[in-house]
């Protein structure tokens, strides 16, 4: 009965309402804050945190039969397909693979690449990087990649995509922002950036 009478009072109701309102507001706001916090946490990771990469390497079975190939699309005259063959644009088959029988086609070319893993020709870099024995090197790079690359390399799905992305020129390729560190060998599959040449 006392409880009932108390409940009847307007101020009690007001207090109840007010408290629930405050609770409601703070909980919604907190939720919002938490999402923002989450994003920032994702970005501000501690230095030895590893990129959660999910690259699947096709261990050594490059001879597997595939009917459709992805290839490096962009080349002026050359292309590299996902099996590591480099060929002339004219020797590309309808399925996107290099014509293996064409004289220009060769697998795993490292011809224009230097010892530090930097190449003069993008397609050579991709092809060289696809070589199965480069896998440990790539894995160790993925484990230590700089934060700036996190967006890129967490989105990479397999060996071929990794090589396409890794060989591109990036923030690691430039000095003074507008100049290549080494204009002759700027496409790198290796861990180190291109050798720094004086301007």
């Amino acid at each position, binding site marked *: 009965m006392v409880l009932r009478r108390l409940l009847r009072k307007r101020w009690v*109701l007001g207090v109840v309402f007010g408290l629930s309102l405050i609770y409601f507001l703070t909980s919604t706001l907190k939720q919002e804050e938490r999402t923002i916090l989450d994003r920032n946490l994702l970005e501000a990771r501690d230095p030895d945190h590893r990129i959660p990469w999910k690259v699947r390497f096709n261990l050594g079975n490059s001879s597997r039969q595939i009917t459709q190939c992805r290839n490096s699309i962009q080349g002026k005259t050359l292309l590299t397909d996902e099996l590591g063959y480099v060929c002339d644009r004219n020797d590309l088959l309808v399925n996107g693979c290099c014509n293996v029988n*064409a004289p220009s086609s060769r697998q795993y070319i490292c011809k224009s690449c230097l010892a530090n893993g930097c190449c003069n020709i993008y397609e050579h870099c991709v092809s060289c990087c696809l070589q199965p024995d480069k896998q440990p090197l790539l894995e160790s790079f993925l484990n230590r990649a700089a934060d700036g690359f996190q967006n890129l390399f967490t989105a990479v799905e397999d060996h071929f995509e990794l090589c396409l992305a890794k060989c591109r020129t990036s923030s690691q390729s430039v000095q003074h*922002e*507008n100049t290549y560190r080494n204009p002759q060998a700027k496409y790198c599959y290796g861990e180190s950036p291109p050798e720094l040449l004086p301007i």
Partner: protein
Amino acid sequence: RPPFVVRCCSFGLFYFPFLVIFFCSMVTRLPWRCLMIILLSLFPEYIVAFNGYFTAKARSHFISSALRSAEALDWHIVLRENPASDFPSDFEVVQIRQASHSSLLPLEDHPYIKRVTPQRKVFRTLKYMAPCNNVTRWTQKWQSSRPLRRTSLSLASGFWHATGRHSRRRLLRAIPRHVAQILQADVLWQMGHTGSGVKVAVFDTGLIEKHPHFKNVKERTNWTNEKTLDDGLGHGTFVAGVIASMRECQGFAPDSELHIFRVFTNNQVSYTSWFLDAFNYAILKKIDVLNLSIGGPDFMDHPFVDKVWELTANRVIMVSAIGNDGPLYGTLNNPADQMDVIGVGGIDFEDNIARFSSRGMTTWELPGGYGRVKPDIVTYGSGVRGSGMKEGCRSLSGTSVASPVVAGAVTLLVSTVLNRELVNPASMKQALIASARRLPGVNMFEQGHGKLDLLRAFQILNSYKPQASLSPSYIDLTECPYMWPYCSQPIYYGGMPTIVNVTILNGMGVTGRILDKPIWQPYLPQNGDHIDVAVSYSPVLWPWAGYLAVSISVTKKSASWEGIAQGHVMVTVSSPVRNNSEVDGEMTSTVKLPVKVKIVPTPPRSKRVLWDQYHNLRYPPGYFPRDNLCMKNDPLDWNGDHIHTNFRDMYQHLRSMGYFVEVLGAPITCFDASQYGTLMMVDSEEEYFPEEITKLRRDIDKGLSLIVFSDWYNISVMRKVKFYDENTRQWWMPDTGGANVPALNDLISVWGMAFSDGLYEGDFTMKMNQVYYASGCSIAKFPEEGIVIAKTLKDQGLEVLKQETVVVEGVPILGMYQTPSEGGGRIALYGDSNCIDDSHRQKDCFWLLDALLQYTSYSLTPPSLTHSKSRVAPPAGSDRHLPERLEGNHLYRYSKVLEAHLGDPKPRPLPACPHLSWSKPQPLNETAPSNLWKHQKLLSVDMDKVVLPNIRNYRPQVRPLSPGESGAWDIPGGIMPGRYNQEVGQTIPMFAFLGAMVVLSFFVVQLTKSKNKPKRRKPRVKRPTYFQQQQLAPTGKNPTV
């Protein structure tokens, strides 16, 4: 090259050293420069305001009945041809000649006429002339990138208030409108195309989470050093909204997949390296359309330019803003000036080119070649409405706005194509430029191919077959004003070949090549044999595009012939295609480039002026400072210094005076001096080969005359204007002064002339003309027989170095000299080039140039100069030492003349003069149509095949926005499907919950009340109300909320 990259946002022109990529705040900030608004009365036009809204017919009836009494009056209604003209209006603009106040009285007396006011023209200009007397400014200037950036930002913020200078009735202009509606995107929406399945990337300032305007934000990524994904400026939100907003201010493609790349910080800083990484991610994500509302003058930033090529090679359609540096010519921004990118300029809603829109040819090709046509197309960029940072709409201007209009249209277009294989950067660009509507009275270096026409582009794209096409698609050197500057000067025998730089777009594949050699086929009935044509072209067309440079020259037999010659160039482009067999598969496409030129007899020597382009250097790549030191926020000389870029006004003036101006893009040794009256060297930064110096001396002995407009060169000042770049911890030191005076002195020393290292500034009067001398040098040495004019000026060098103002009397600034040899030429020197340069010019001195040309070409000495009080004895050069080259300068890095050497740089061996190999003509007995434009269309596209279901004469419904009205804006007939109510943010559930709480508490009160007082009242009376209210509760629409 110096470690500085300057990239600026097309939203403004900001230079920052070191790669600070500036971005454009669309935010209106009042700069320290005052924005002046002047109201002028435009004499014969009156605005007649009515009491209500009436149709055009009724309005005209009212006015004629009101003016019937005053029949003598000559009046007519000014037609307003805008989309609103079909709707009732409450005013009319009437033009009344000989209007007096009394003649307006009958109008005002009419019962339906509220008032009559004179039409006013509003000028909004920047108060440009920054006073050059603020002593303290030198100290805070040039020290680092940041102050530079800020001042330039403010300049830019002023620009987007100014609109087309051709506009006559600007007061009617400023109704912000839905750009997607005006471009008739709703026709495509009604066909079910809303951009679904197309990935659009917006490289900008980011976007807040859960913006109410967007339903399909796939991903937001941050590439800056700030730990946020949100837009702190509103630029990125606006741009994304123009592309994909689904409500209020609607974008073009609301169902497209948005990928937000945050590459600008809230401080509007960005770096090339951020872009490189972000672009790589865009390639990986297989983005279809990418909008870049940024740009900068540094087309020599190889990592950036290469990356843009790489991006388009991966089939990303790049759309970029051409820049906000207009109306000056030579101000195109990179990457919009690249062949593989769709460069977008801005217009206002009256189809005038927006004043801020950058224009003029590209300057990559100088000095030897000629620039390409850019922008590609123009579209609305002035007063466009787009999404506000958190909600609502706002209206903004700038090419940053025009670019997403095209990007949105492109996104929508991509989603209409069934076979996506056919869509690539080249085919999209081909469709856009082939469908664009040309604006009358505007040349191609301002409007490109014209104004975006979405529906025609849709038709073309949906009947598209892979092919090559050319931009421009024909060469008609007689067509004015579209083909300006070609149409401004006919060609003649003996002139420098006219070069037209045509871009080949290859929709067949990312690489292509030109098969065989292009063929020149003159039309014999149309005098095609009177011209020679040489063609050079890109060895490989990659990515999607290449150049085709057509040089046209008159044959010797036509030296005194006058007429029009026509013919065409045939080019076959081939691209590899994927094939099944062992045989090479190729696809080919043949395009015809019609050519039409006007030939006149060779003008006399005295009428011919040769402009030295070879010795003009500019940014990029090196730091070549501005010629006017007062222009602090634009420290670089980057407009090309060509007669068709920033010396355009001077060129037009010389043409109007009857001179024929040609450009020398090769060393001085490469022209026949006996053909020319005067050689003009203006603001040259380059060194000279010893052979050039000898040859010029010989030429002048034989009657060639020389005019030199020099500029400042003072080592101490150059050291002072160096600045420390915080990003590289390096000093950026200019490689020359405004001009390379030591090199010029080497050139003219043989006649006993020299410029000093003085630096002067000030106003004076000469020949009744006001002259402003902005940062020029003086003449240190001049032959005794010469005429020298001196003026009183301020020593700007002292001002820069010591902040002291010293007035110097008798500074020799102008010298004229007749060489003594028989038939020898004349030489005229002037110490400052600003007054003939369009950039930052305050007062022109074309009259002085006229006088000097009269002197050099005709040996007429203007008496007002020779008998002027300002004439002084020629200085002997003893009192002032001559400028020395700045020790340790890096000019050799950018010079075509010097090369690095142990010790001082040495001249290279003289390069061979350019040699054109003329195509062997294959004459045709054919005639071409007289109007090339109408007949030259994109090949093999049958537009009638694709029928639009709904092409009614669509008029967007326009409601004027009253000044205080904010965002909310109902879309007439808006058909955006989808989750309109689902994502209205978190506010709605909150309000619902609150409402429910209030209702609940109300019932609790009611309940307790009723239980407490049961005995006194009859419960039956209460019950029904209770039930009623209970029923109301679940709907949540209780009005008490």
